[in-house]
């Protein structure tokens, strides 16, 4: 015994503590067989290995019948790697025992084959003490061991013969090896086994509960002796059972040797015995080895020699190999694995039975094997025979039996064992094993209660397989008795597991027991890993029970277990904790631990900082609500604690940088700046933006998703806030370049049956995504933006341009510099559409701080539209216009499309020319040009401007770059009739017109007329005759009040009239012309017409001959210059500035022959206007005055018109001259009057009368001359009729008694019409002496 102990001490486990916990363990793993799958050799690609591993791990559950025919369910847990230290605890918890080893490799040559064999052997060494069996899967070889060549792939199925052979060999090998197995487990022959089982029960050491399994065991072992009868169903299994049978049989032979030697010694002895050159760790030879069989067996030799190419395993290679040509041609893999697992099971089962059969007396001997690694020391010098220790060994054995039973699929049995163990161990204060038993009990209960908790990993992976393969595998798995279905889907397993379980723990008990177990584990420092794992398992169960708080407690406990771990392992630990917290729903907690784990990766104590890992861990912190996608943030508003998020993001940036992925760092920094901007202080904003700028120098931020190594795709981050676009507005082309189209208005009347409806039928709500103007192809288009810079530093946007869809659009990029913290910075984005159609503006792109961002309008929160559509019209010409006149300073905007203006200042009656030059600055010729004049207000403007349309049309088309010009003739129209200082239409001027009001004022001579005018005017007239200058002054002064009503500001300039008109040019050409588009532009014409002359008064005087008359005009020169006025062919007059001059204009009388009645005055006016040619000449200009607007009184009309009656008067036989005639008083004067009718119709009922009066020349007339003269004959005569062309003669005599000046008027008026009066002009002027 001593020696055995010393061997223990010296031999194994220098590292008594397990180095680190297996965080993936579940309670269910207690019931699973552990198989390690290794990747060996470099020829096999990792992907291939992963596939193989997946397929292998799909075989994680097998069902078979034990020797008594009871169904057993065996679970397998496959691991890719398994630390040896864990294995050392396998005695304490048998599920930690690595029972099987599968290595997968690829070989293409003998050398590689040898190498792989060597590696496999080496791999086995690590698990030397626990391994039951191993397989070496080699790809690239045909099943017969020959090299596989890709060409002949038809022979895919592995050779069945070889398989059978191997089975055969394995049996034989079992025969060889079984003794060792037997020795290891202190095994006896079946009969003995059986008897010992019975004996043990009869000895009554165990309680009643204990006796039950022993009986089972006994029956089973007896059944094992008849293997062929029991295990006949499946040929695949029969070899195993056969081998077991052999093994059991042979084991008895070696019994004596086995009883008193430890396994290690025996195996090493054996190995050295059987193979001299064996590798030291060939102790695993006990797992059967067909190749070894091949090498030793002549049969196999011969077989291998048949295939020439067969690779020959090295002589010391004793593992069984499975050859598959490729992964695809390995349909038998699952079957082989099944076979492998079942072989493991049978060994396990035998071990279980062995343990069960241990005699009570021998149990203490087992104590040495039934101990945790760290306990081994404690047994030195211990009295193993003491009662206390015996009980202890007993308890531990029970516990181990429980473990084994659980693994062997006997759940209820294991519960019995565990409970027994708990009883015993409690009494002996063996806390560690008690804890183990408690945990085991919990595990069984969990397996029974929550079978669905098992990982259903393999089934999910199935989807990755190809369809054909799926079918194949399905068939395969269906044909074999085992099933890879997850337990939850298999009703049998549920029904098979649940009902028979008695004493299964209740959920509440589970919690208590786990707690107890963890508490007991906690008493041992060395059991930290076990405790941690137990805590994790407990929390997993509690998560399932939804007892989150309790689960959190266990996890909290796990945190506190102090383990000696490297930084890397610590990281793993925290990461695992975080994962568990996540499952618990404690996301913040999980995030906390993730961050801790991440920090561990790069902690200063860590010799190998792993920045990449740190980064990927930091990325997983969902608890802090960091979203890498900035658009997610905006959906739910802000989330989480900004300070923490900022910190984590900063860490992300830092790790990404340290990792060497500067693009990633830039991306993270961009995200940080973008999302955290509202939460940053001013300084932070500056710092972070500067950091971003520095980072982006190494790798600029691009608006594309970035994939990092671990498959995470970092979405692009667009800096929508830097700069922030407050306003995004499309700018319509300037009005004169705005394309227009003739839209035919469709009659909308028919749409509605109602004459009126309150409902607006036009439901077309203004679509904000549609611009209400068009752009033109090939011309610069603008979008105005107002930018806001939230940073306290000047922001340089080195490129900002539009993003568009639809028609081709050439984008100009702008460089913008936004001052620090400015909130209203305007900028313009420009571009040029290259073809007509619909252009959709979907966003803009910026390049600032080294980050390129593509920002869509729809991602902007305050943007009212997600995009803007604008129609691009075909190309149109563009023109530039110049005029020969100066531009006016200001003009009232009659139209917004005015491009230029011309300001013309002129005098009334003046003519000027304005040349307009049109330059085609567009790219297409101008094919259409139409001019219209747009006038508002004074329609007189139409008189002012004239142009020639023909001239314009003749110049079309105007090619691009060419010019055309035309002339506008400007005439200074205006009212000449009137007063200076007042408007022509002024009532005062009308009323001031002399004599117009009083038709009854008879005297037709100018002086007599003067007497007839009103006092006011008369005084002026008299003054004017005295001094023209003064009269003008008085005119002005007297009329100021009137004028000021019209224009209070400028009484003098009020006479200057402004005329505004817009000359609209409508032009088109090129493609736009064909589609009906055109452009308009306007020239604002501003004409200032100042008066030059005014006709203040006028009158008519009889002319020198009856066919003529004089139009007497008072012409006032209101200019600042001396003016020469031409008023007749040879007559001219100079008028000083400001002076008024009276000019007689000789005119022919107007014939009224064709004029209707009542329109005589109008006809006379026309006659005067057309015939008076009044020219004024100034030093610099000249013009023509018209008498347009002149009005005539009835008397004037008579003068103007040719009188219907021609007078012929003779005095004393002499025809009358218009001069004074002298007579003596008392002298008889004979007067003869002839009236001749000029008209074509006869004049009837005329009354001819004579009227004598005295004119005092002072405006007074004396008509009372009764006593001063006498008329001989009729002074009045009634003429009944004067025929056309005929004449009437009347004679009379006059005698004057008193001397003096007398005048005689001859009047002829119609009898019934008092007002129609024909006079003889001038009156006879008689001087009586």
């Amino acid at each position: 015994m001593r020696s055995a102990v010393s061997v223990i001490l010296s031999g194994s486990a220098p590292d008594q503590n397990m180095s680190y916990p297996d965080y993936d363990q579940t309670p269910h793993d207690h019931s699973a067989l552990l198989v390690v799958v290794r990747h060996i050799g470099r020829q096999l690609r990792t992907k291939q290995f992963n596939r193989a591993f997946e397929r292998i791990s799909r075989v994680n559950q097998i069902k078979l019948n034990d020797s008594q025919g009871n169904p057993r369910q065996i679970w397998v847990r496959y691991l890719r790697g398994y630390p040896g230290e864990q294995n050392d605890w396998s005695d304490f918890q048998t599920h930690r025992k690595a029972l099987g080893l599968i290595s997968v490799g690829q070989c293409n040559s003998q050398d590689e084959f040898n190498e792989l064999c060597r590696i496999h052997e080496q791999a086995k060494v690590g698990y030397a003490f626990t391994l039951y069996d191993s397989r070496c899967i080699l790809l690239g070889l045909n099943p017969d061991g020959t090299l596989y060549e890709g060409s002949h792939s038809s022979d895919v199925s592995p050779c069945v013969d070889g398989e059978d052979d191997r089975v055969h060999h394995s049996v034989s090998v079992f025969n060889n090896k079984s003794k060792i197995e037997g020795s290891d487990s202190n095994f006896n022959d079946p009969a003995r086994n059986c008897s010992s089982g019975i004996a043990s029960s009869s000895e009554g050491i165990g309680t009643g509960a204990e006796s039950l399994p022993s009986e089972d065991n006994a029956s089973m072992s007896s059944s094992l002796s008849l293997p062929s009868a029991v295990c006949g169903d499946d040929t695949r299994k029969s070899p195993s059972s056969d081998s077991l049978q052999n093994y059991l049989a042979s084991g008895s032979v070696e019994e004596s040797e086995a009883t008193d030697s430890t396994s290690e010694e025996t195996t090493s002895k054996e190995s050295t015995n059987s193979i001299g050159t064996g590798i030291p760790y060939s102790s695993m030879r006990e797992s059967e080895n067909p190749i070894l069989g091949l090498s030793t067996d002549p049969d196999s030799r011969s077989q291998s020699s048949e295939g020439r190419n067969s690779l020959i395993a090295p002589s010391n290679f004793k593992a069984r190999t499975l050859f598959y040509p490729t992964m695809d041609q390995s349909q038998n893999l699952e079957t082989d694995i099944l076979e492998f697992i079942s072989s493991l099971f049978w060994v396990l089962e035998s071990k279980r039975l062995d343990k069960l059969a241990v005699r009570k007396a021998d149990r203490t001997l087992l104590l040495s094997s039934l101990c945790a690694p760290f306990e081994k020391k404690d047994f030195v010098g211990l009295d193993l025979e003491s009662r206390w220790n015996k009980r202890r060994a007993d308890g531990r054995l029970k516990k181990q039996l429980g473990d084994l039973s659980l693994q062997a699929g006997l759940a209820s049995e294991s519960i019995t064992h565990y409970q027994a163990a708990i009883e015993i161990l409690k009494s002996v204060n063996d806390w560690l094993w008690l804890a183990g038993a408690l945990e085991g009990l919990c595990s069984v209960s969990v397996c029974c209660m929550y079978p669905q908790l098992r990982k259903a990993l393999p089934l999910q992976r199935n989807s990755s397989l190809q369809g054909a393969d799926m079918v194949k595998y399905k068939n395969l798995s269906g044909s074999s008795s085992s099933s890879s279905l997850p337990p939850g889907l298999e009703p049998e397993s549920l029904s098979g597991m649940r009902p028979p379980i008695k004493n299964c723990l209740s959920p509440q008990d589970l919690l208590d027991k786990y707690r107890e177990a963890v508490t007991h584990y906690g008493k041992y420092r060395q059991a930290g890993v076990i405790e941690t794992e137990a805590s994790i398992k407990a929390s997993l169960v509690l998560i399932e029970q939804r007892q989150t708080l309790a689960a959190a407690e266990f996890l909290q406990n796990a945190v506190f277990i102090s383990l000696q771990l490297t930084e890397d392992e610590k990281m793993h630990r925290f990461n695992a904790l975080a994962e568990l917290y996540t499952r618990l729903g404690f996301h913040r907690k999980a995030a906390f631990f993730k961050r801790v784990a991440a920090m561990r990766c790069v902690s200063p104590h860590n010799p190998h900082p792993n920045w990449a890992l740190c980064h990927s861990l930091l990325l997983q912190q969902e608890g802090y609500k960091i979203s890498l996608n900035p658009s997610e943030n905006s959906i739910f508003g802000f989330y989480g604690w900004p300070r923490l998020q900022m910190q984590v993001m900063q860490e992300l940036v830092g790790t990404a940088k340290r990792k060497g992925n500067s693009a990633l760092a830039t991306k993270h920094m961009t995200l940080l700046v973008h999302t955290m901007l509202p939460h940053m202080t001013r300084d932070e904003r500056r710092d972070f933006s500067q950091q971003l700028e520095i980072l982006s120098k190494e790798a600029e931020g691009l608006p594309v998703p970035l994939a990092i190594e671990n498959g995470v795709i970092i979405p692009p981050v667009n800096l929508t806030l830097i700069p922030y676009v407050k306003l995004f507005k499309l700018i319509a082309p300037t009005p004169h370049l705005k394309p227009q189209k003739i839209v035919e208005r469709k009659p909308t009347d028919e749409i509605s049956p109602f004459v009126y409806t309150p409902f607006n039928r036009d439901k077309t709500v203004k679509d904000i995504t549609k611009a209400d103007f068009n752009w033109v192809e090939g011309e610069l288009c603008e979008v105005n933006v107002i930018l806001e810079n939230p940073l306290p530093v000047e922001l340089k946007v080195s490129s900002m341009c539009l993003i568009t869809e639809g028609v081709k659009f050439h984008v100009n990029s702008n460089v913008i510099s936004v001052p620090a913290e400015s909130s209203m910075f305007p900028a313009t984005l420009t571009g040029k559409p290259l073809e007509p159609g619909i252009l959709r503006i979907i966003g803009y792109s910026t390049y600032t701080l080294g980050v390129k961002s593509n920002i869509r309008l729809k991602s902007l929160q305050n943007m009212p539209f997600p995009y803007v559509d604008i129609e691009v019209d075909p190309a149109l010409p563009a023109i530039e216009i110049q005029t020969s006149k100066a531009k006016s300073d200001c003009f009232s905007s009659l139209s917004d499309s005015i491009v230029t203006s011309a300001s013309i200042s002129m005098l009334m009656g003046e003519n000027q020319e304005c040349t307009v030059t049109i330059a085609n600055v567009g790219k297409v010729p101008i094919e259409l040009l139409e001019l219209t004049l747009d006038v508002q207000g004074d329609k007189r403007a139409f008189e002012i401007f004239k142009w020639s349309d023909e001239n314009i049309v003749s110049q079309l088309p105007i090619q691009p770059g060419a010019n055309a010009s035309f002339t506008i003739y400007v005439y200074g129209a205006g009212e000449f009739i009137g007063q200076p200082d007042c408007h022509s239409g002024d009532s005062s001027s009308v009323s001031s017109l002399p004599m117009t009001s009083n038709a009854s004022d008879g005297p037709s001579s100018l002086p007599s007329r003067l007497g007839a005018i009103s006092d006011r005017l008369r005084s002026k007239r008299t003054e004017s005759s005295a001094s023209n200058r003064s009269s003008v002054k008085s005119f002005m002064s007297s009329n100021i009040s009137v004028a000021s009503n019209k224009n209070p500001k400028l009484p003098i300039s009020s006479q200057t009239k402004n005329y505004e008109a817009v000359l609209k040019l409508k032009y088109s050409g090129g493609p736009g012309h064909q589609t009906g588009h055109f452009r308009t532009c306007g020239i604002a014409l501003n004409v200032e017409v100042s008066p030059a002359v005014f006709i203040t008064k006028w009158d008519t005087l009889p002319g020198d001959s009856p066919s003529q008359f004089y139009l007497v005009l008072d012409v006032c020169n209101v200019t600042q210059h001396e003016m020469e006025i031409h008023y007749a062919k040879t007559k001219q007059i100079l008028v000083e500035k400001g002076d008024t001059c009276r000019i007689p204009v000789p005119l022919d009388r107007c014939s009224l022959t064709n004029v209707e009645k009542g329109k005589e005055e109008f006809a006379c006016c026309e006659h005067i206007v057309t015939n008076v040619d009044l020219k004024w000449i100034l030093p610099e200009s000249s013009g023509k005055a018209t008498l347009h607007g002149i009005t005539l009184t009835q008397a004037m009309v008579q003068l103007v018109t040719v009188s219907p009656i021609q007078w012929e008067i003779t005095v004393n036989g002499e025809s009358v001259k218009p001069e004074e005639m002298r007579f003596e008083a008392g002298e008889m004067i004979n007067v003869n009057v002839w009236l001749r009718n000029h008209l074509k119709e006869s004049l009837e009922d005329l009354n001819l009368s004579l009227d004598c009066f005295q004119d005092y020349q002072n405006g007074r007339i004396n008509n009372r001359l009764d006593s001063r003269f006498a008329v001989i004959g009729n002074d009045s005569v009634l003429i009944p009729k004067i025929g056309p062309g005929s004449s009437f003669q009347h004679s009379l005599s006059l005698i004057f008694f008193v001397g003096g000046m007398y005048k005689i008027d001859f009047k002829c008026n119609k009898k019934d019409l008092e007002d129609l009066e024909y006079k003889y002009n001038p009156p006879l002027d008689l001087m009586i002496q």
Partner: protein
Amino acid sequence: MAVCVAVIGKDVKRPPIFPVQEEGGSRHDPPRRLAAVARGGTNPQMTDLQYSFIVSSALDIVEERVQMGHQAFKGGNPALAAAGGVALSSGDGPQVATRELYLGALTAQEEYKVYGYMTNTKIKFVIIVEETSIPLRENDIRMMFRRLHGAFCDLMSNPFYLPGTEIHSKRFEGTINAILAGQ
């Protein structure tokens, strides 16, 4: 010795899509930590930020505890639950009234223990206590919370304080400083 005191606002505005999330409330009421933390703690490397991380991670437990309390109440009063809608509303009254405000130890780090307290208006107080040689008694912790609650009530009585906004009150800070100083 308390090293950190945090006040976390209630949250009622979160969308139910995130039943676990309650920390959104902290947006308008970020956890209030005071400069005294550095003075109170023996570890000078602990910053506000690190305390923030601890407080944040403790909130999960607060939620869980509160939820557990609700469930326990509902389970404990089947009669009330069966009484239907009317009783339900009336049932809220005693529930709130009887709920223990003190939530106990929430979590623990190597050197720190975190205690929680939630008022009936779902204002959460979290106190981080440094584990020193002199263990604090549960009663001391309760006293701290009670003082804190009192101070908070005083603060809420201030008509010029808008609930849910960051706290700027000298008096409140004074109380917290006193708690941190262990007075």
